[in-house]
């Protein structure tokens, strides 16, 4: 019936009426006055007295305001206008009680932002599948030992596995190597993955540019080709769109770039470029050894019908046969295990992240309790206002609507603020994430996180905002609410008890969180203080990776290292310089099997194989326990003498002197032709243990051989500077470059020398990261709990104004009043702390299985935290208590 044009015209008329609201009201008033005048005249013409006529006319027209309002209803936008009015009123109310509104908004914002932030992290790091196609079928393959441990699988064993691979649609072997990529600015060491046949089809990932290997290229005789990672392509080739077909220089090889992988394709995580394994099959002797278990990966794709557990079982039966055929290599490694790739990548960080998730849940809980408390308190104190409104004729629905709108406004403000804060927090987390937090670059605040925010806000608003507000201001109170409420000390007894319980709950939750953070802090500080077995101060290192074409044979490499050490050692400000293959606390190392004459061979008898120069002991300030370290003459002509660490000595000769004892070790440099060769040796010295894998790991047993006995293909130049006037890093880099220009790219020359203390600190950075997050959360929890107790106590004081006023009037001392208020306020806090302590015992017992390096429940931590909480609670309750002493008895009594 009404056309859109008419509808529009109506809307325009309505809108203009809205804007000329006051003028229209005046007009209607005029109109009614005119009406009354005519009516009056008519009545008088019928013979009524002037006065009677006026009265009758007014009576007949009735309530002008009512007519105004009825007319208004037709002009206004009905429900919308109603809501707008409620909105205006709600904002007015919110502005009138800034303290309350701000507390609610901030509490909610804190809860939402913490939850949404950590949800984003958990969701992107732990929950979502990896970005590879059918990523849930990808598994990392390991040999599985009798004691439940795992080790990398050797290439020959993997070939055996893939011959009878029930449950797998494909398996692939990846060999890792550092290669030197020649760039205009100088060489750059990059991680290269040599991949066995079918690797890219196993990964089911198509390249961003070009193609991956064709079968001919995967053969030993194939043309040399290389596939680049996206990051490498961007970083070193400026995203050159014509890169495909270009020949690059890698060590002595000159492969052609055939493709670039898409961003996010990073398997193994260190791979920056991929080449066919066929290229090194002939010359990499390590690939022929069954006891080669380093620098490699094995990956498999499960067939669609199986899962990791049953595939592991099937593979184990294959490995059992392999172990029987090669007992000298496989020994106790009679099983195999397929670990889902996601578990492999994020598994180690999972417990820590879940702990954060737990912490956030606690924060949210505390925030909710706060909100419930606040809105209950508020609802009670507004019961009176609501009763007045109802008495003046507002409908119950209108009053409820008003409360709901008020709550919603605060909720929306809080949620918006929370999401904004979460956005910054997520960005901050990404920016500061330690480099080894897996998938950190995938973390973002997306629609899923927003959905969580919206749902959370909805649920919180209804459960902890609307319901308590409505209940507290229930219209049932009626006149009774109007008159009586004030005199009771803060609402009914049940309400008071509920508030006490809620406050107590907050304190116990906050205590749990604080104790957790305290324990983590303690274990972190213990790690920082751990003795690594060497002196880390003034110690600097440079990773040396000589170009393979120039230093392929052992002799030239050894010559290079010796020249480097001599050159740097002679610099002013340098106390000592040395060369070693793997240096603590880098986390890298190559093991050798150790055999003792007359002792049964065990595949567990591993020790780190360290080849070091003569100055290493002094440079590290490593403790010499027995015998001697290598001398210059050992370096010139190495004999059969080796130095062992104390843990090796203790393992084989617990009660005897290890000096002069015999043992057999095995050459471990994978690139040398004599890899795996047995070397009968004699112990000439025993040195202290070092924590090769960082402060969180036990010291690794180690066997040291002279650098000249087995020159490594790469290694670390160790420099101890003098404490006073140390040589600058730039001077060191220049010196290195003078010896061999190809060692450093000019671009990075100045910052290549790294302080060991710095790398130690970055080793601890994941812990620091988690710790700082947990610390921030605990402080939030503490603040929320403080706000909770402050709010409840202030409310109690406000409600008891009259009672306290009378006490004052009757001569109660200030101290006494403070005490009454404080005691009432602190009882829930104390009870909460006590329950929290109990809760902590329970939780720590569980968490200890998950977070292995958390310290056992330390009474000192517990006492400190409880005292802290108590103090905070005391201050928060004392502020309103002090206000109670300032109550003027007269005003208090008059208020009623």
């Amino acid at each position: 019936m009404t056309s859109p044009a008419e509808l529009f015209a109506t809307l325009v008329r309505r809108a203009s009426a809205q804007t000329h609201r006051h003028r229209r009201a005046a007009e209607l008033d005029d109109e009614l006055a005119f009406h009354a005048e005519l009516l009056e005249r008519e009545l008088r013409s019928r013979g009524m007295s002037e006065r009677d006529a006026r009265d009758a006319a007014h009576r007949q027209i009735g309530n002008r305001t009512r007519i105004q309002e009825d007319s208004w209803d037709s002009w206004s936008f009905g429900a919308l206008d109603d809501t707008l009015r409620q909105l205006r009123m709600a904002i007015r109310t919110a502005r009138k009680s800034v303290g309350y509104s701000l507390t609610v908004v901030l509490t909610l914002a804190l809860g939402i932002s913490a939850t949404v932030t950590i949800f984003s992290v958990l969701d992107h790091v732990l929950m979502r599948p990896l970005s590879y196609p059918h990523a849930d079928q990808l598994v990392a393959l390991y040999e599985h030992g009798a004691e439940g441990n795992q080790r990398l699988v050797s290439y020959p064993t993997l070939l055996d596995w893939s011959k009878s691979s029930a449950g797998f649609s494909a398996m692939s072997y990846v060999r890792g190597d550092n290669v030197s990529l020649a760039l205009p600015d100088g060489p750059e060491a990059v991680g290269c993955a040599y991949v066995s046949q079918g690797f890219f089809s196993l990964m089911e990932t198509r390249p961003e540019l070009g193609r991956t290997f064709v079968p001919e290229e995967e053969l030993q005789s194939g043309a040399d080709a290389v596939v680049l990672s996206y990051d490498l392509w961007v970083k070193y080739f400026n995203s050159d769109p014509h890169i495909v077909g270009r020949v690059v220089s890698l060590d002595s090889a000159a492969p052609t770039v055939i493709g670039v992988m898409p961003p996010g394709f990073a398997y193994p995580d260190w791979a920056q470029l991929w080449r066919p394994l066929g290229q090194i099959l002939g010359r990499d002797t390590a690939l022929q050894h069954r006891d080669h278990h380093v620098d490699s990966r094995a990956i498999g794709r499960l067939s669609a019908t199986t899962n990791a557990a049953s595939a592991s079982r099937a593979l184990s039966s294959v490995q059992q046969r392999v172990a029987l055929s090669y007992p000298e290599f496989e020994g106790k490694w009679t099983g195999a295990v397929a670990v889902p790739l996601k578990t492999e990548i994020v598994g180690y960080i999972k417990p820590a992240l879940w702990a954060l998730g737990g912490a956030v849940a606690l924060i949210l809980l505390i925030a909710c309790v706060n909100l419930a408390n606040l809105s209950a308190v508020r609802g009670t104190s507004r019961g009176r206002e609501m009763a007045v409104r109802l008495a003046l004729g507002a409908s119950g629905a209108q009053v409820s609507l008003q409360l709901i709108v008020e709550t919603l406004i605060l909720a929306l403000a809080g949620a918006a603020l929370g999401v904004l804060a979460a956005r910054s927090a997520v960005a901050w987390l990404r920016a500061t994430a330690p480099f080894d937090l897996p998938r950190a670059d995938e973390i973002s605040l997306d629609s899923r996180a927003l959905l969580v925010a919206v749902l959370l806000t909805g649920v919180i608003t209804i459960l902890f905002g609307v319901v308590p507000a409505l209940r507290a201001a229930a219209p049932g109170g009626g006149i009774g609410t109007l008159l009586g409420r004030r005199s009771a000390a803060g609402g009914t007894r049940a309400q008071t008890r509920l508030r006490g319980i809620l406050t107590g709950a907050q304190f116990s939750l906050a205590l749990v969180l604080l104790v957790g953070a305290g324990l983590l802090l303690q274990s972190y500080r213990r790690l920082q203080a751990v003795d690594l077995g060497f002196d880390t101060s003034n110690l600097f290192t440079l990773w040396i990776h000589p170009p393979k074409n120039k230093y392929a044979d052992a002799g030239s490499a050894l010559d290079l290292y010796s020249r480097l050490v001599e050159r740097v050692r002679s610099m002013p400000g340098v106390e000592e310089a040395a060369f070693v293959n793997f240096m603590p606390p880098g986390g890298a190392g190559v093991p050798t099997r150790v055999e003792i004459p007359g002792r049964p061979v065990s595949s567990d008898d591993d020790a780190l194989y360290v080849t070091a120069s003569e100055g290493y002991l002094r440079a590290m300030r490593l403790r010499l326990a027995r015998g001697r370290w290598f001398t210059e003459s050992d370096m010139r002509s190495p004999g059969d003498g080796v130095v062992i660490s104390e843990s090796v000595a203790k393992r084989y000769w617990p009660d005897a002197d290890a000096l002069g004892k015999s043992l057999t070790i095995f050459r471990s440099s994978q690139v040398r032709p004599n890899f795996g060769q047995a070397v009968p040796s004699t112990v000439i010295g025993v040195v202290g243990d070092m924590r090769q894998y960082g402060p969180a790991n036990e010291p690794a047993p180690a066997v040291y051989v002279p650098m000249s006995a087995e020159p490594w293909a790469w290694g670390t130049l160790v420099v101890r500077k003098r404490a006073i006037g140390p040589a600058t890093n730039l001077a060191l880099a220049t010196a290195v470059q003078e010896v061999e220009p190809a060692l450093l790219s000019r671009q990075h020359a100045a910052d290549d020398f790294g302080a060991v203390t710095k790398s130690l600190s970055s080793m601890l950075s994941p812990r620091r990261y988690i710790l700082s997050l947990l610390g921030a959360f605990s402080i939030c929890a503490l603040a929320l709990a403080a706000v909770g107790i402050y709010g409840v106590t202030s409310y109690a004081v406000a409600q008891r104004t009259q009672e306290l006023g009378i006490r004052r009037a009757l001569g109660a001392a200030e101290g006494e009043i403070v005490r009454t208020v404080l005691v009432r306020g602190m009882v829930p806090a104390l009870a909460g702390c006590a329950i929290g302590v109990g809760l902590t015992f329970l939780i720590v017992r569980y968490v200890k299985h998950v977070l292995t390096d958390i310290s056992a429940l330390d009474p000192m931590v517990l006492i400190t935290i409880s005292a802290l909480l108590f103090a905070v609670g005391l201050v928060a309750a004392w502020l309103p208590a002090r206000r109670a002493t300032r109550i003027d008895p007269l005003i208090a009594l008059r208020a009623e």
Partner: protein
Amino acid sequence: MPADRKDEILPGTLEMLVLKTLSLGALHGYGIAQHIRQLSKEVLQVEEGSLYPALQRMELKGLVSAEWKLTPTKRRARYYKLTPAGRKQLGVEQSSFARLVEAISSVMQPENQE
């Protein structure tokens, strides 16, 4: 409520009566009420409390337009006038009212004849 109250106007018919009244020429609120009362021989009493909100409503719907004019006695009054839309609406309401009356009387008639 006064005891001598006259019959109330059937709900929904007030607008039609106002439209019919205004179809004879522009009038102010008081005039409309008088006109309806007089033509109905004092049976239909238009309450001010209904009339003015109804006029506002009709103005909003665009059935009538209003302007301030001087009365013959030089008094300022708000005069209401039928718009074309109002005239159309009057036709619609008139015919549907006629149908309604016819329907009601055909129900009522047999009884009346007894």
